[in-house]
């Protein structure tokens, strides 16, 4: 893939990933074909800041966990009323990292299926 396009992708989406993973993402994208860029660009990454807001407002209902794709943990959090409030508080500190990890997983799956 073209260097310029990769840089543009990284500039637009850097906030969705942990900064130390950006070189790895760049390396993965370089191996990919130009025609697959559209698929990567249409991936719906979750904003860590938005997830933090959701966690602060509706964390006890497990909505933050549902949104990032942890359905099992979301149900557990919902049924326990956010682990009696303790889990909900802990998630205020965990959710941004968890969101970035989920975004990375999503990108890894996409690059693995599109690269050859």
């Amino acid at each position: 893939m073209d260097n310029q396009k990769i840089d543009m992708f990284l500039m637009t989406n850097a906030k969705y990933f942990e900064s130390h993973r950006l070189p790895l993402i760049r390396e993965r994208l370089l191996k990919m074909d130009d025609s697959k860029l559209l698929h990567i660009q249409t991936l719906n990454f979750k904003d860590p800041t938005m997830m933090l807001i959701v966690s602060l407002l509706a964390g006890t209902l497990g909505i933050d966990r549902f949104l990032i794709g942890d359905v099992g943990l979301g149900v557990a959090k919902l049924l326990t009323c956010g682990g009696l409030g303790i889990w909900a508080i802990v998630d205020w500190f965990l959710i941004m990292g968890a969101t970035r990890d989920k975004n990375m997983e999503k990108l890894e799956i996409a690059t693995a299926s599109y690269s050859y």
Partner: protein
Amino acid sequence: MIESTEYHYKPHPEEQERATNSYLMSLVVVIFGMPLPIVNLLASVIYYLGNMKASSFVRWHCVQVMLTQLFLFFINSVGFIWLMFIIFGNWEFTNYFIAYVLILLAFNISELVGTILSVLIIKRGKHPKWWIFGDLTDIIMAEDEQEERVHG
């Protein structure tokens, strides 16, 4: 009380943030955990479980927080149960209890100061090791660190 050392690699800013969050989280939970000492311990365990896939630096600090909270849990629980017996039982309010509460407060305040200091040390890119708890964490995490050094 706290030794500022170097970790075997330079942690990334995100790792530093996650490690400082483990200390900050224990501060926030104190507000909710005031009446029940186990709340702090549970919160630090949940935070550790949430960071199981994180780097060894983050996990090291999660374990250190867990150990300090475990120690405080025992100390605070004894004080809490003693107080309950004084209020609802027939136990007397003695000088021993006052002495115990003073010791309990000293430990809790030291933990609070230590937590804030640890956050500041991590923000400077260093690796804070608490007296006793740091060495215990080293023993617990030794295998983990060894594996990371070998596999990168």
